[in-house]
């Protein structure tokens, strides 16, 4: 029997994809098709591909979910969400809800915020992370730089956390993101 892909993962680069796959694979979802931007970044690219894949979801019955991961990059969560919602509306594709298998994760300010917080938790610390600071180039004080090899384990670790009992200091968008991921996993389980 042919392998059937159920989830399309749209993200900017390998790190984002490794993080998301860490979570999805831990929840038993291994049938993933990956779409990453060859140039490694780009809000426009992720938006275009996310909308395209939502469209595919409505056309092909085998697809169960689309998961997009896009850095907020200081542009504002509402702005980013409105942008994607407008693009979907233009194509008559409705809105995006994780519980309907259309999930968009928007780390503020970028994925590194989440990775550093999760890494600190894994190391037994709980640090407060400023969600407006760009930690891509410089890690938070007293923390070692995030390596490529940290990304997938961070996603796996996130899967072990309870989104209703996240500790103080958890980045707000990570709290929301974990709830979205739980909804998404339930939605694609059908």
């Amino acid at each position: 029997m042919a392998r059937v892909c159920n989830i399309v993962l749209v993200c900017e680069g390998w790190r984002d994809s490794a993080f998301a796959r860490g979570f999805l694979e831990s929840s038993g979802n291994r049938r993933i098709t990956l779409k990453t931007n060859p140039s490694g970044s780009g809000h426009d690219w992720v938006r275009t591909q996310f909308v395209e894949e939502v469209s595919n979801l409505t056309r092909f019955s085998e697809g169960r979910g689309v998961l997009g991961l896009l850095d907020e990059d200081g542009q504002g969560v509402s702005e980013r969400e409105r942008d994607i919602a407008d693009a979907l509306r233009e194509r008559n594709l409705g809105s995006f809800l994780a519980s309907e298998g259309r999930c968009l994760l928007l780390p503020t300010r970028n994925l590194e915020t989440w990775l550093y917080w999760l890494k600190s938790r894994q190391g037994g610390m709980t640090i407060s992370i400023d969600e407006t600071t760009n930690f891509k180039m410089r890690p938070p004080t007293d923390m070692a730089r995030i390596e490529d090899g940290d990304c997938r384990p961070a996603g796996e670790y996130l899967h072990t956390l309870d989104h209703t009992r996240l500790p103080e200091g958890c980045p707000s968008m990570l709290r929301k993101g974990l709830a979205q991921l739980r909804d998404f996993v339930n939605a694609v389980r059908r």
Partner: protein
Amino acid sequence: MFVRLYADNYRCFSAFTLELGSLSVLLGSNGTGKSTVLALFAKLRDFLTGRGKSLDLFPSETLCRWDKRIEQTFELVVKLEEYGEYVYRLRIRHEAPERSLNKVVEETLFLNGKPLFEGNDQEIRLHNDRQSGNPVGMQPDWHVSGISRVYARNDNKKLIAFRKSFENMLVLQLNPSLVMAVAQGKQSVEIPNPDCSDFAGWLRYISTAEAIVRQEAEQSLAQGSLPGFRAFQATPSGDAEILECIFQSKPKTLKFRLDELSSGQIALIILEVAMAAAAEHGGSLLLDEPSNFLGLPEIQPLLVRLQDAALEGRFQVVMTAHHPIAVDLLAAGYGLWLDREPTGPARVHRVQMTDSIMNDKSATRVSDLMARGWVSTLGISRPAASQETGSTAAVQ
């Protein structure tokens, strides 16, 4: 990790240098030297581990056809976390090419700039781990690596670690139609042939010496890489053993000889075992066109797993690729483009994403550009001759 290969006067390589990372993807037209790189690694491994002699591994036919010199030079830079940077150098002289006679005239190994092993055709000096004091003398064998003849001792761990990095190198240029299900007699293969025709013997070795590798591979295959697969089973048949694969699709359980499976299934099985072995050893996996024989749904998952393993530091991956899925996923960031004039030496360029590609809103695919030969947009300059004449030889 192998970080640099230098080869001079070997097949299509003339003063050729290849820099490698944890993941390196060799791209380019046919006949540009991609598979030759992998085959050369296999030969150097076989030489350094005593599996082959210079006469067999480097016959006179391997000299560059356009070069009148009679010496071949190879250099490898290997970084090991525990000890540092090794530089291995091998020089072979073909004194009577018409009679296929050659000899090793230089074989040296330096670690962090200090000698561990210094050999020529007259003498060998073997240094201990302190890399100081009086070296021990050895008689050279003109056709065999001196390093392969060194016995492991407590005071030469650094040299042995270097040699071990070659024992942990797997080079696969798969040809499933040659893969046999039968392991003869006591055949137990520690390092498989590149075509993996001896896979049954390799799995027998793994099953006894490294059972965890077999378990990991079986688990991964059963978890979805090969639908229906459950386990391997070796069935005695006279002096031999026949390798069978158990498939289950409720309520049926069926056994198939390995050579009864499709080429794609055989390739998937071998790749899975190879990945498990490479991860166990923290070694290097060199794959010639791993997407060959695989069905479309299998290709991206395999490539993503290789990328994960390399970037997460589980093992090094060097692979050649033509398939558009591989090119689009991996060329940017890990691509090395090889090209050459049909009768000239191979050259290598790192694939770069120029501004015109980075800012391309229509998201032109890298594989499309490569298929058209529009590689200048990827930071690759063509040889001057092909630009002037409009020749399509170098970049087709």
